[in-house]
């Protein structure tokens, strides 16, 4: 039972991790980022490459990966997204092109083979059943990341400016804020968080150029079902769908778990077209 609980929490945390970067870029900025999966993949490759070249695993995971993918995010925003704000369909096509470009580039550099990082932290054992202790790290990182994002959005000047810019970009400039800078920083933050997520998940998923495709669907389902309150919505959607997925997996198979997640999402959007956010306080972020 305790093992099952850890597995459910791990699935919830993994879903939240792969979704939170997209929640910032799509939920806040309304940029339909189809390259989100590739940002996760770049995070995984960053940690894999740095680690295999002798860098400490934790430095590679928590410092190098987010910084590198954050810089990639800045470049994507400056070169492509900046010219397409307010044109959702064009953004979708452009970011899809970026995703194909990044996948092709990484395949060219590293080859279409799965690389791996051995899962650190060993095992824990409850009632004679062993499981990877790394799951606790994933859960811990997710909790700390969400707490950090909430504090930044709700309690800091930077977070207030970011929320205001997404709410009314014309008016923030009248208050002395340069909305272009806010957009670039927000996109870079979303990309960096995606990079961190990809890096944290790399030891349990394997690293391959097409791994982004496995994430993108679940991330969009979670963020869209989360609704307008990007932080609270994504958190609650992750808890709900992660639980549905893992419980179904435990009682049947992993495939049925994925199907159950999808059915849960469809039912949710039927009942709550504006997502889970419509049930939470209107002051939630």
């Amino acid at each position, binding site marked *: 039972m305790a093992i099952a609980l850890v597995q459910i929490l791990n699935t919830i945390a993994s879903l939240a991790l792969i979704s939170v970067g997209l929640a910032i870029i799509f939920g806040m900025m309304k940029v339909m980022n189809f390259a989100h999966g590739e940002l996760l993949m770049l995070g995984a490759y960053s940690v894999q490459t740095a680690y295999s070249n002798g860098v400490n695993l934790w430095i590679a995971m928590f410092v190098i990966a987010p910084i590198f993918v954050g810089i990639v995010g800045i470049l994507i925003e400056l070169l492509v997204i900046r010219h397409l704000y307010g044109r959702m369909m064009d953004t979708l096509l452009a970011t899809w092109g970026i995703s194909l470009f990044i996948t092709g580039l990484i395949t060219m550099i590293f080859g279409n083979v799965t690389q791996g990082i051995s899962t650190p932290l060993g095992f824990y054992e409850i009632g004679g059943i062993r499981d990877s202790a790394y799951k606790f790290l994933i859960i811990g990182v997710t909790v700390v990341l969400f707490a950090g994002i909430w504090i930044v959005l709700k309690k800091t000047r930077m977070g207030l400016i970011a929320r205001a810019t997404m709410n009314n970009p014309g008016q923030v400039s009248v*208050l*002395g804020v340069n909305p272009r800078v806010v957009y670039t920083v927000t996109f870079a933050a979303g990309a960096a968080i995606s990079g961190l997520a990809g890096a944290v998940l790399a030891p349990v998923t394997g690293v391959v150029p097409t791994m982004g495709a496995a994430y993108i669907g679940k991330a969009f389902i979670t963020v869209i079902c989360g609704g307008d309150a990007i932080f609270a919505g994504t958190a609650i959607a992750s808890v709900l769908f992660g639980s549905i997925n893992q419980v179904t997996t435990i009682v049947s198979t992993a495939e049925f778990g994925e199907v159950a997640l999808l059915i849960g999402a469809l039912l949710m959007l039927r009942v709550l077209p504006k997502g889970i956010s419509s049930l939470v306080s209107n*002051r939630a972020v």
Partner: protein
Amino acid sequence: MSETATPIISTRNIGKHFGGVKALEGIDFDLAEGELRCLIGPNGAGKSTFFRCLTKQYKPSTGEIFFRGRNVSRLKTHEIARLGIGIKTQVPNVFDGLTVYENLHLAANARMYGAAADEACDAAIERMALQRIVDERLDRLSHGQRQWVELAMIITSRPVLILLDEPTAGMTGEEVAKTAELIHEINRDTSLIVVEHDMNFVRAIARKVTVFHQGRIFAEESAEEIMHDPKIGEIYLGKRKKVQ
């Protein structure tokens, strides 16, 4: 606030064209430090366009803008705001997704940090009697309340020049009187330009009035002279009649 000879803001030959339509043409305008000026004119005369040109929300097609003698024509909207120019537009331009306090804090953060920003917010809340709605989101407030919040935001940001575009639109008689009082209070340490249609309100607040007509400055006279100028009545009402 006493007026000095150096204009806080000047424009020379400002024009704004939208395709073939000339919304503004050849506007030469000076506002002295500490002055409170009203702009009047019929709908479509170019008053709001002029405001948007001053804050660079519209890029003027011709001409130059000077702030305290410095040419600011090339600055962007956020850079103009950082000079200390605040604007309140006709439709309350606030942040619907944020609470009243967050809106005020945002405005305060434009020109100050930390405890100073907190104090500015608290002072504005007290001055505008917003205590009851301070935690409400803006999209839950009435039109009048949103107008007051936007005025409070301008006060909180402590600008040196305020542009108010029809500040009394949609307000009750009592609120209009309160707004006139507030504008006088603000004018003690801040220059103001106010676009307004209500001539009684104009007479109550301004000494000097600039009349816009068909994208040009038609007249620049005292409020009393404007009230008795038959030409002004003509452009407002299409016939020779005094402004009421």
